[in-house]
């Protein structure tokens, strides 16, 4: 259930942040634009959630 909730929460939070466009979204973290880091973090979390071992299917 946690996995499902997290899977729904990751894109929802991502799009919510894009919609709100806080000032720090346009900044850079070192060489990386924060907005790009945010998207790649969402990628990584979604991938982790997909690869995480699930309840064994029959």
């Amino acid at each position, binding site marked *: 259930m946690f996995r499902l909730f997290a899977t729904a929460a990751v894109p929802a939070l*991502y799009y919510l942040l*894009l919609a709100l466009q806080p000032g720090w979204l*346009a900044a850079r973290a070192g060489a990386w634009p924060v907005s790009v880091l945010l998207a790649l973090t969402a*990628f990584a979390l979604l991938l982790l959630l997909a690869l995480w071992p699930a309840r064994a299917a029959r």
Partner: protein
Amino acid sequence: MSPALAFFIPFALATLALSHWAARRTGAAGAFFSAGGRVGSALGGFALAGDYLSAAAFLGAAGLYYQAGYDSLAYAVGTLAGWPLMTQLIAGRMREEGVFGVGELLAKRFGDAAPRKLAAGVSLTISLFYLVVQLVGAGKLLGLLFGFDYTLAVLLVTLLTLAYVAGGGMLSTTWVQAIKALLLVGCALVLATLTMARFDWQIGGLFDAAAAARGEAVFLPSKALASPLELMSLGLGLTLGLLGLPHVLMRFYCAPDARRAQGAARVATLLIALVFSLNFIDGFGALALLPGHAEFFAEDGTLKGGSNMAALHLAQLLGGPLFAGFVAAVAFATILAVVAGLTLSATATLTRELLPGRGLAFVRGCALTLALAAAAVSIAFQQQNIAVLLGFAFALAASANFPVLLLALYWPGLSATGAAATLATGLAASLMLIVAGPGVWVAVFGFDAPLQPLANPALVSVPLAFAAAALASRSKETP
């Protein structure tokens, strides 16, 4: 001979030989659609990725980076988000149920009643709309890539596709898609490697060059995604749309068991995430590197062949004509594999749901008829803006197919009436909202302002479909 054709012809010959081999192993209509039920996680995952990654996912995504910068990344997150849900909620359960698509799932629960036919109609509509859009795209893209005449390109794609589908059915289509996925990943990887090499492997150099070309705004959503509601609706539609696409759902039927169906979805997620991650390097690379090279631009300052050619021009710039030819050949293979998957899905819906109980010759005849009909429509509508059909197909998948699929899999309280109401509401709501929205009301009909502001209807139509299911299932006893 152009390098593109030199790369493509061996691919076409090898896949046709594969189709011939598969045709000899496909004896009955059941095996024709299931590939014998022996497609393991790795092959199934590559085929799933091949089914899902259309030319839009590679050339189109890079083109969107070139045209609108960050928007392409925002699309990619929504598209990828559907895959963990597919792994957790749909893949294993679909295989456990042993069904090919939504229609068969409803038939298993409610018998051969109205919801089955309605679901089959929705699935067939999604596949055919998607197919026409892909064929129109193929005609235009192959004209740009190979210099083919539009009609010739559409007919070539249709005939090659028919050789895969009508010949070897699911088995040959699976292999074609898996090979294409492998080529696509390799192509994106080489292009990203060449791009990073140009920036001395410093990602900051790539971002600085992109910002120098277009400004820091290139790292933020464009005005097209400025509305918060539109952005949320787009994300919801992209995520849930995947979960209702018939040509993706059919793949789990080929797995030997639920565990391997989930495994295939995991492998596909990994491949798709990899392609999307490489796309952002390729896309920002095109945006940063192409502007200094006049040979890629028309006299009016636009990219030659349009923004969809950005990846191809980047390949030409970084790898020369040979690599550009390879990229073009992979794009052709990509189109073929997706069209094959869609043709197979439409044929399956027609012959398993709407006209069941016939032999393999009838199935092959249906594949031929559907493919030729889609080709005829694609040729007739080549000058029309048919992007709205793709939007409608995705909206239908998210608003009609996904809600009824989820409820049929997980909610014992769903009644036959509830299932029919879910499908009908999702269908009607998405159709009405799209027609009344800016994509049709303003862009097609020419009115000044839309009747409702959302171009993507999922934020409204998906909750409506679930509400219809709850209300209609309460009002009738569950059978």
